[in-house]
């Protein structure tokens, strides 16, 4: 299929199970539509490049988060969400929903992103800050800084910050 000549860049700043979805969904879809895609992973987003993903989600500070349950939607008060074990419970519930609704796992979307030859750039500063090693990340990751992103963004038709 002919490339469109269009391009998109995304800054990925969040590393929770829920927020991992928008960047990977948009990046893989854009690539499938012929766009050249670059993803720049910084701060907590960098954890999405680790070889073994252990993504989690919490209801804390997320008043809009409601889970479908027995035909209703249930929200959890912050005080309950802070109890030991609640983060694991919420994560398990979310992962079950994801499977049940035929939504791809983040691992699957990331594999598709690699396969689509999406350019993935890890933030060198974040790597140093949180004391990760390049070997902690999946293969094929470029390490660079803000100037690399800005140069990429300047040439891109779409730039997103997520």
């Amino acid at each position: 299929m002919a490339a469109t000549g269009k391009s998109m860049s995304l800054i990925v700043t969040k590393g929770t199970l829920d927020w991992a979805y928008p960047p990977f969904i948009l990046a893989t879809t854009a690539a499938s539509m012929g766009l050249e895609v670059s993803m720049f992973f910084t701060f907590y987003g960098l954890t999405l490049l680790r070889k073994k993903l252990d993504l989690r989600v919490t209801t804390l500070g997320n008043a809009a988060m409601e889970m479908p349950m027995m035909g209703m939607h249930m929200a959890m008060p912050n005080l309950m969400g802070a109890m030991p074990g609640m983060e694991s419970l919420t994560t398990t519930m979310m992962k079950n929903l994801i499977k049940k609704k035929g939504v791809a796992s983040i691992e699957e979307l990331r594999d598709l992103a690699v396969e689509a030859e999406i350019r993935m750039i890890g933030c060198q500063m974040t790597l140093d800050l949180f004391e990760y090693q390049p070997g902690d990340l999946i293969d094929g990751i470029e390490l660079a800084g803000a100037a690399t992103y800005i140069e990429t963004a300047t040439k891109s038709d779409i730039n997103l910050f997520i």
Partner: protein
Amino acid sequence: MSKTVLDVKGLNCPLPILRAKKAIKDIATGSVLEVIATDPGSVKDFDAFCRQTGNELVSQKEAGGVYTFEIKKGA
């Protein structure tokens, strides 16, 4: 004219599009890919996908919550 069938029933956004894109890559120009999906969002999405990629959405129909798209591969 040959036709390839891709079943993405039960899969949610963006998997129907990603699987379709892969399948289109493997067929010849002018051939038709039939996609069978259950994701209601795929109706608008296949429209947009085809417009953007230069493939032709020949037909789309719905029956009992199952959507069938025929996509003709463009040059």
